[in-house]
């Protein structure tokens, strides 16, 4: 995916738009952009989810020639996009419940097929189901697994910000260890979220043997668009999990959403990869490895680790987690892992500090 160009912008190792050939440039504001999630919605400043959704859905709109419908789980994305009597969605969109987006998506896909067949139409609208990490990894997990298992023709997108932000930053099974949330308070001998809890839904999705699974980040929108487009080239169940920093929940500056997301990639904290039919097929390599402290120190949810009172053992443990990710997913070097990486939670559970 990455262009061969090596003219990085000074000091950042990022490739600016101007240095890419026009076909490769992102079209943030082009006239032809579908603008499916249009301006005027009520997301917070610097909302990673709004950014991720805008790019993901527009990419899917392009890939499907506008023949797209969305089932949205309850959560920030739903709340900020459809305050009665307005809607920021310029495509068919339904919100039903918190935990059922995947199943509603399956139902929409059935309806689309049946209606198209009856009308003798071969152009069947495609379906995306989407939700936050709470709606995906916790309350919606059963319906999600059911949709995967049946290989229903739905792309499920999880906007992962690592907690229940809509209800006021409570811990989900996607909350990383040691992170502060409203339900993993900074009290006791091990402040923040417990170690050895949580689940790795991309790896679980792969274990269903579905055609396509990927992780992505709002720090690499080109990669995100590419993955959504690729996902839409498959039929059957697909899963993309996008890291979307939440300035409010993470306690980072609204202006640093992309920076924090990038550091999550560059530290190995959040491996970005894609898998087809249960096998990892590509990995987004770290371009300039950074210590995890650089990621943590931008966020108040980790302030207890990065300040003077921070426990170096916990920091070392998070660093070890990142190093293990780098090794397991092959985030550095030219290789793609031969075997399915092990969920990082295994390392946590297998280790006592």
């Amino acid at each position, binding site marked *: 995916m990455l262009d061969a160009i090596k003219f990085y912008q000074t000091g950042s190792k990022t490739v600016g738009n101007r240095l890419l050939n026009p076909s490769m440039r992102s079209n943030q504001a082009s006239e032809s952009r579908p603008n499916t999630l249009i301006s005027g919605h009520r997301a917070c400043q610097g909302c990673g989810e709004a950014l991720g959704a805008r790019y993901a859905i527009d990419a899917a709109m392009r890939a499907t020639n*506008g*023949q*797209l*419908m969305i*089932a*949205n789980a309850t959560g920030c994305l*739903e*709340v900020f996009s*459809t*305050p*009665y*009597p*307005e*809607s920021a*969605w*310029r*495509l*068919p*969109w*339904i*919100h*039903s*419940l918190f*935990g*059922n987006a995947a*199943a*509603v*998506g*399956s*139902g*929409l*896909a*059935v*309806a*689309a*097929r*049946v*209606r198209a*067949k*009856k009308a003798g139409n071969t152009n069947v*609208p495609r379906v995306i189901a989407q939700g936050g990490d709470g709606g995906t990894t916790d309350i919606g997990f*059963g*319906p999600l*697994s*059911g949709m995967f*298992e*049946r290989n*229903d023709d739905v792309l499920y997108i999880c906007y992962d910000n690592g907690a229940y932000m809509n209800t006021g930053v409570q811990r989900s099974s996607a909350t990383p260890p040691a992170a502060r949330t409203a339900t993993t308070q900074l009290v006791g001998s091990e402040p923040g979220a417990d170690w050895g809890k949580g689940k790795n839904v991309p790896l679980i999705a792969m274990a269903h043997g579905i055609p396509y699974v990927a992780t992505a980040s709002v720090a690499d929108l080109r990669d995100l668009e590419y993955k959504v487009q690729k996902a839409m080239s498959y039929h059957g169940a697909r899963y993309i999990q996008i890291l979307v920093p939440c300035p409010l929940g993470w306690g980072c500056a609204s202006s640093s959403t992309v920076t924090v997301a990038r550091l999550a990639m560059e530290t190995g904290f959040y491996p970005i990869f894609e898998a087809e039919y249960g096998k990892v097929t590509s990995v987004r390599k770290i371009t300039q490895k950074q210590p995890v402290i650089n990621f943590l120190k931008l966020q108040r949810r980790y302030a207890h680790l990065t300040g003077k009172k921070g426990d170096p053992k916990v920091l070392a443990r998070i660093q070890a987690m990142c190093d293990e990710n780098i090794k397991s997913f092959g985030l550095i070097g030219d290789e793609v892992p031969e075997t399915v990486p092990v969920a990082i939670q295994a390392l946590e559970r297998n280790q006592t500090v």
Partner: protein
Amino acid sequence: MLKQIEGSLGIAEAVALCRPGAVCAYPISPQTHIVENVGKFVKEGKLQDCEFVNVESEFSAMSVSIGASAGGVRTYTATASQGLLYMVEGIYNASGLGLPIVMTVASRAIGAPINIWNDHSDSLSQRDSGWLQLFCESNQDALDTHIMAFKIAEEVGLPVMVCMDGFVLTHAFERLDIPSQEQIDSFLPEYQPKEFLDPKEPISMGAMVGPEAFTELRFLIQRKMEKALDVIERVTKEYRELTGHHSGGLLDCYRCEDAELKLIILGSSVGTAKDEVDRLRDQGIKVGIISLKSYRPFPYAKLREAIGDCKKVVCLERSFSYGARGIICPEVKRAMEGTDCDIRTTVAGLGGRAIFGSTINKIVHASLEGKLKDEITWIDMDTKLLNSYLKDAEGVTVPEDALVDDSVLKATVGHA
């Protein structure tokens, strides 16, 4: 066409005649035979342009139904008991979204203790869900009601629960007259959704609504329910003319002319009661039955008319509201407000305890002999069994073979 088949198969045939585009369900007794058969019809091509989805839970069964209905196809599912409760969040959502889903509830008790047998506590627990709830007397009635349900749902713009007694009807092998496909095609034309998700005309469904409009949206659902009273009657009339089957309706009266006592009953016990009422009438006892078909919307005016100037009404309830009393009785009282009609209720047939003709006989005699002293009487209580617990646990007993009513209840807890 006459067939001697299981009730569940009859319902499956009825559903297939309605040409749904999406059917999904999760196994739970006693509903399973229905969807097994529908699934088979889809697989063998008897039911075309329809997809059958084997989901992983009732929650998803309702959710896939919501998606399919929002996507613009006629949608059917079925459940019972725990399954119904497991999908409750979706049940309320479907009515809020105005999706005309039709669902069979093969009525069954709710645990704990787990109990697979028939009563009405599952369906009645959903009385405030915004679904129409239509009860069926017999398998023929259930078969016909399912077909009418699609038409009613689509016209009213609300989902419909067809409540048929689990096992007693679903597993009974009886004679059924199944209408032809041509008849049903003329009665129920191809589904034309009023509103659905379509890339050609994008809409957003299920937006968040705040205090500024929520009350009004609730009122609009109540308005649909009010409209449904007429729709049910009209659709029933049309269906009866088409098929000659005396099914459906808001309620149905049996031997109510000159009746001095009218029983209000829901579901399959109506048939059992009819036989008993014939015997009682032969003995000169003037008793009639009002079979309550539509529980939601509740036909207050129609019921008041059906009760007329009869001074004695007894409900037979196969459900109960803890800490309160019967569930049906207060509705009947509301219908008869301002009259001097004496309305009592009896609880029987919970968790599959059979309702016999003799049960009906007992209720009628208890009523006529003035033995139904309180508003509510537990009619078929095994007082011996009850005492075996009460005596050991609390050192109290109830009189054996007594009708258990409020006075007995209060006596056992020391407030006589």
